[in-house]
């Protein structure tokens, strides 16, 4: 954020302003000054825009807070051939995302202050989207010793997680939830009982036919159930990442009804695809947790529609060709998602499960609230992080056009609706169609 254009004023006129946090849904205009939103509303600039203000004509399109993606693997440091902070930022910008929370499973692991500071510095240099790092929950992600929750929080860690590794040891999880209360820190779990999760795809008829080892839905259900009991025991704040099963959604629903401090998210592939996507040994659909049955897919969709699931995160997991062009069992788990998060989230709106406001909420203010990020809403004085988009324009997803370094998406040819026209971070346009 250059200090030079600190006072630059930009007027977004002819916009359809939409903000889930406040319920704003009106035609109007918005004014930014430097890095902040300073004014907005239906009557702003009714009599024209004063001189000296840069004008951006939105041509009637929707102007919303930029998306907040709380689950992204940056691959930097360590695997820069798969993705870098810069390319992830470019991909996010093209996807309408203005803030991302970066998972700590880089090489080295982000389990100390210097790692977290490094990512923050590289993010500033890249000058793309805002990057909020997670801290590792345990040192080296080994599931044994807790990291310095307090110090890491002070240096910017927004929550603590062992990324794609479940914290399997119940005592470790118990202590993490207890200790985190000192700093009001959030614990994020990859909910999968590892001793039940030795497989490579969902367990069931298809894994049996394909001769692949299956992962039972109970691997997820049991871990979420156990963790809920530990939350009950400790009172710590808990977030279950990327739910994939009907059973886990039920458990979270009941835990919320009992007033426990529990939230959860899911990724677009868990409500847009099912296990049939791995037929023909398609490794681009190999993901952890695995794509599940159609019944589970419907339950995830329903969990989003009824508010049980609090947010949608891409779980962006870039992998190069060499990591995927392998026999299925040997291929890496993961799907890239920064450039498909928005159109796939909009499926909930297009399928009439949610209003546009409620649908946007799942990718803006709600995920921001889970991690306590000061973004994801349109308000006076708020950061000028915006996305201009057309929710209806249809197209077929083409991973070859992704800005991400990796193209491992199972959504090739998927009919989507919703195009990002412009992405603005701190008042600066970082993407324009």
């Amino acid at each position, binding site marked *: 954020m250059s200090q030079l254009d600190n006072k630059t004023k930009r007027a977004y006129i002819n916009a359809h302003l939409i903000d889930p946090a406040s319920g704003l849904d009106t035609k109007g205009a918005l004014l930014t000054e430097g890095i902040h939103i300073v004014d907005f509303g239906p009557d702003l600039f009714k009599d024209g825009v004063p001189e000296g203000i840069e004008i951006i004509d939105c041509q009637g399109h929707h102007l919303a807070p930029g998306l907040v993606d709380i689950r992204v693997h940056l691959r930097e440091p360590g695997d820069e051939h798969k993705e870098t902070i810069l390319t992830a930022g470019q991909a996010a910008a093209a996807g309408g995302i203005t803030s991302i929370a970066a998972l700590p499973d880089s090489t080295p692991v982000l389990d100390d202050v210097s790692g977290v500071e490094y990512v923050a510095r590289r993010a500033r240099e890249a000058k793309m989207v805002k990057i909020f790092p997670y801290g590792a929950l345990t040192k080296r992600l080994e599931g044994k010793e807790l990291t310095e929750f307090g110090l890491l929080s002070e240096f910017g860690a927004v929550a603590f997680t062992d990324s794609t590794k479940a914290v399997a040891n119940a005592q470790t999880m118990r202590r993490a939830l207890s200790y985190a209360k000192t700093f009001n820190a959030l614990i994020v779990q990859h909910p999968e009982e590892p001793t039940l999760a030795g497989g490579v795809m969902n367990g069931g008829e298809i894994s049996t*036919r394909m001769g692949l080892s*299956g992962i*039972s839905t109970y691997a997820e259900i049991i871990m979420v159930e156990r963790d809920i009991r530990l939350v009950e025991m400790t009172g710590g704040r808990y977030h279950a990442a990327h739910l994939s099963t009907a059973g886990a959604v039920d458990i979270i629903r009941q835990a919320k009804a009992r007033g426990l401090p529990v939230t959860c998210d899911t990724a677009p592939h868990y409500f847009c695809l099912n296990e049939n996507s791995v037929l023909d040994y398609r490794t681009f659909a190999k993901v952890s947790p695995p794509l599940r049955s159609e019944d589970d897919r419907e339950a995830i969709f329903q969990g989003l529609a009824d508010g049980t699931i609090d947010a949608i995160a891409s779980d962006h997991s870039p992998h190069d060709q060499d990591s995927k062009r392998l026999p299925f069992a040997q291929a890496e788990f993961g799907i890239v998602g920064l450039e498909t998060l928005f159109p796939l989230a909009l499926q909930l709106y297009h399928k009439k499960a949610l209003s546009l406001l409620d649908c946007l909420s799942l990718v803006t203010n709600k995920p921001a609230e889970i991690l306590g990020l000061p973004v994801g809403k349109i308000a006076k004085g708020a950061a000028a992080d915006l996305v201009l988009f057309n929710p209806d324009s249809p197209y077929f997803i083409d991973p070859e056009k992704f800005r991400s370094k990796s193209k491992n998406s199972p959504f090739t040819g998927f009919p989507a609706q919703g195009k990002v026209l412009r992405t603005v971070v701190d008042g600066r346009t970082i993407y324009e169609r």
Partner: protein
Amino acid sequence: MTTYAETIAAGQTGHGHLLGIEGLRADQISNLLDLADGYVDQNRAVKKTTDLLEGRTVINLFFENSTRTRTSFELAAKRLGADVINMTVASSSIKKGETLVDTAMTLNAMHPDVMVVRHSDSGAVKLLSEKVNGSVINAGDGSHEHPTQALLDALTIRRRKGDLYGLRVAICGDVAHSRVARSNIHLLNTMGAEVRLIAPPTLLPSAVDRMGVETFHNMKEGLEGCDIVMMLRLQLERMQGSFVPSVREYFRYFGLDQEKLAMAKPDALVMHPGPMNRGVEIDSELADDLDRSLIRTQVEMGVAVRMACLHALTQGTLSDGVQS
């Protein structure tokens, strides 16, 4: 209708693969078995070779150790007059960095007409087939399929029982990890046989009943009225506690002996894809009982069936409907 010339041309340019039984139609299976029947006679004659595949190259590419299957394919190709190269790629070479796809493309550059491939990963043979020009025959991929084994089993049964239709066949043992079981389930169902699986639940894959089979955990109940009893090999590493508690207990409840076999039809026949664990899944005397055991016939039929597969793929007589 394709003309004779087109059929030959297709055979020369390479085309279809045999990657599995799933997806094959009954008439295609019957045609292969008819073709194999003829080769049984040829193999029993003094002169066992023809020049059908003269000038063609067959590569046996085995990423997993195998003696019998590789030998069977080698003999089959040689008896049809092909040039055969055997390559056993130990897993250590893969660890050196060359991927399966690299290996496939390297060998493909040498213009093999047929590649016979075995790999320890399900789907690996299909992946390889997408990168080569010639035909690929799956000689076993992970726990997925082993189509020529199912075909040789079918030929063995058909020659003894006349027809597969209406037979009650029990497949017993480690179905969960068995490619032989999966290929046989597909083939027997396609040909109208009734398939039963007999195993402890730890050795049955999830939702296997959705494949059109009935499952039993009690061997005597499962064997009732069976015409054919197919035993599967139980890998040593699975006998030591994680899937079954001990060899002793496994043989007691799931090993085939005369007493349990008595529950099947009086003329029931016993099969095993080999290599056998005598005293683990099958009683040693029973395995050698020529009145009941088809185990050695299976080996003989193996060569004939593989000749039929090489014949059909290279001559283009099976191209329609075979996975390509």
